[in-house]
């Protein structure tokens, strides 16, 4: 067994951390969140670092990064905020789907934009009545010869409102088939006629913003169909383990950042003539938390390693998502307690952590859904 990172990986980690310190410290990430601001310059800088190309194979002009390396970047970016990491991860995950399932023409067409992070791709699976049960989606596309006509509504479409965003919409193309078998994937530019986007007010995650999307007779050219017609449910599932794993790493990054912030505060803040961190009532929960974070991180790294090794890891990725997101919530909760009054005022980064953490156990598949997956792997099918 080997726990050490390679020299190259250590370098990548250091670079990514330095990048965050310089270009997106938590205070700045908080400000972006409070002003609903998407930081395009940061985006460009990530592209310059080659991070958007990293997940794609070298033979295609990509960086050939392993899942673990991508995890290291996501983990470092999340030290700023989960939202910043999410903006990164959310772009290449659907990009990889295009790369893997697109035809040659599509791959060439989208290549520069994908490698350079030019596209913001928003994934539209969820609908008002299809969340955890994604296959129940109803938003429909009908075949009109050289194009599809899309009608329906999507919910929680993160990033769909940013200028130039492409919406990767999972739509029902065969209403007669069993629910898993009639779904297709269409790329829909958000400025097509008939696309209407309405921002949903949320507690946090304001960088990308999440939206309701309405399609009213939207014409989508056939060449924007990715993968087999009616066969997109497996596409939807295929990237999921990778997404969960990378996001799990991001959750440990932001949990660690939260830990570091409360630790620093607990050493500097004195009450009753001693640093508050020296009260066991705080020292022990902080020790527990660091233990939890280390355990969570190992779960994320294990899943990443399994993906690299080509091993199935649905169970392990679900465990990682479950544990890491819950650990972020626990970290923010303790952080609020350690910072007390200072934490509750909006000036503190900790207040931002708490706001942001709440959604961690919901988006990307709720904790309950991860538990279902783990239980299922144990032969316990719940409902």
């Amino acid at each position: 067994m080997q726990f050490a990172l390679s020299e190259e990986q250590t370098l990548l980690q250091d670079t990514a951390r330095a990048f965050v310190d310089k270009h997106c410290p938590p205070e700045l990430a908080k400000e972006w969140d409070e002003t609903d601001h998407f930081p395009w310059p940061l985006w460009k800088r990530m592209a310059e670092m080659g991070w958007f190309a990293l997940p794609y194979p070298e033979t295609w002009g990509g960086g050939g990064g392993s899942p673990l390396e991508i995890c290291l970047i996501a983990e470092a970016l999340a030290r700023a905020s989960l939202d910043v990491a999410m903006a990164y991860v959310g772009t290449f995950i659907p990009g990889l789907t295009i790369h893997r399932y697109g035809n040659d023409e599509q791959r060439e067409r989208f290549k520069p934009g994908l490698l350079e992070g030019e596209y913001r791709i928003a994934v539209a699976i969820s609908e008002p009545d299809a969340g955890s049960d994604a296959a129940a989606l109803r938003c429909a596309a009908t075949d009109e010869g050289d194009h599809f006509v899309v009608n329906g509504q999507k919910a929680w479409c993160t990033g769909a409102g940013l200028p130039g965003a492409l919406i990767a919409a999972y739509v029902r193309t065969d209403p007669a088939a069993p629910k898993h078998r009639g779904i297709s994937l269409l790329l829909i530019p958000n400025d097509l006629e008939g696309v209407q986007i309405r921002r949903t007010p949320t507690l946090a995650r304001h960088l990308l913003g999440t939206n309701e999307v309405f399609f009213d007779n939207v014409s989508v050219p056939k060449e924007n169909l990715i993968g087999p017609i009616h066969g997109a449910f497996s596409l939807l599932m295929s990237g999921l383990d990778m997404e969960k794993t990378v996001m799990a790493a991001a959750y440990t990054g932001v949990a660690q950042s939260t830990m570091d912030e409360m630790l620093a505060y607990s050493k500097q803040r004195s009450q009753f003539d001693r640093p508050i961190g020296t009260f066991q009532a705080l020292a022990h929960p902080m020790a527990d938390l660091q233990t939890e974070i280390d355990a969570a991180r190992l779960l994320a790294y294990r899943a990443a390693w399994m993906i690299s090794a080509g091993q199935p890891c649905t169970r392990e990725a679900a465990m990682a998502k479950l544990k890491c997101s819950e650990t972020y919530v626990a970290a923010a909760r303790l952080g609020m307690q350690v910072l007390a009054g200072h934490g509750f005022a909006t000036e503190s980064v900790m207040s931002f952590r708490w706001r942001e953490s709440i959604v961690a156990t919901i988006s990307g598949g709720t904790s309950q859904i991860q538990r279902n997956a783990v239980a299922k792997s144990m032969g316990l099918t719940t409902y």
Partner: protein
Amino acid sequence: MTATEVGTPGDPSLDLDLDRELDSFEDQAREFLEAHVPRTAPATAAWGVGDDTMSSYAKRSPAAEHDRIERARWWKRLEFDAGYGWITGPTELGGGGRTADHLRRYGELRAAYAVPSTNVYTISLGMVAPAILQHGQPQIVRKYVTAMHRGDLIGCQLFSEPGAGSDVAGLSTRAVRDGDEWVINGQKVWTSEAHHADVGLLLARSNVDAPKHQGITAFAIPMSLTGIDVRPLTMMTGGTEFNEVFFDDVRLPDSYRLGAVDAGWGVAISVLMNERALGTGDAFGLGRAVERLRMMASMPGLRGDDPVIRQQLARIITNAACIRYQALAADGRRKAGLPPGPAESVFKLANTEALRLVAQVAGEMLGPSAVADTGEWGTYAWGDLILTVPGMRVAGGTDEVMRNILAERVLGLPKEP
């Protein structure tokens, strides 16, 4: 065994008289309530009806904030003038001069009516007014206490400072004697409702040479004095109910002093005990939150039939019942003339822990609609409570401090080295 003598405590006929008197009091109170406010809608019909706010710290527009204060004021005045605003207060100050039983009866009755929220007065009446009444000089008592109970004036608690939170006695705001006046300099922080307050309950250091607990003096301080600057702070919820308060050479007559010079710590302790005792009522809103959760669980599609959720709901309802019974016991002690003591720290701890669980379970039941506004009644409103809970675990003494009090003062364990 001897029979109880007629006319002494324990005499059944006396109890009956008392009961009769209480019943007629209740009848009159019911008439009053019926005349002015609607009854609370039954839980089954209440879903989707009216205001779905879950937290008093929720973000409000200036208009909504104005409305909150005006409605609270209107109600307080009406209630006071009808004789129900200060039921147990001394008659010479406009109180009702009645017993704790009357107060309880009225409270139970009122719970069935949709009276406006009066949370802007919680600190004012729960902590500030009792301190002025107990420790103030007669003209100050007359100036403030009646008007506070009538809701005409609002009080705030000026204890915490940037450097003195849990360790209140470490405060450094200075009060320097100058003839018949005191000159106040320093800063307070996280002062709830200071921006609405007319009078503050101030702790300041009057003697820098004495040990820290023995150099503090308490004052009632008019918030309109020259040199006081109140700056609202935004809370995590987006609400602006707490403030920084700065004192720059504020001159305060000695007649506003509460208790003896350098004896402010005793005043502080009595206030903090009253603060803890607030938990025996429903100052934290647990009862309401549990009711809303129950309502939600009975709505189709909101997972009330999920076994894990059902277990958690059962736990919540059990906890809430335990808290209620404990509160009744505390009420009994109060009636027997015992002041609130350190044991009541358990209420604050239990209430905030119970609310934390309520908020968590609501979040689990609602999923995204607790954190994103889908426009559906009674869903995103929980987001405010989720954001408020961390503040509740801090305001009025943190969980850790409550546990220290229980450990040291109730269980008699040694202090942490």
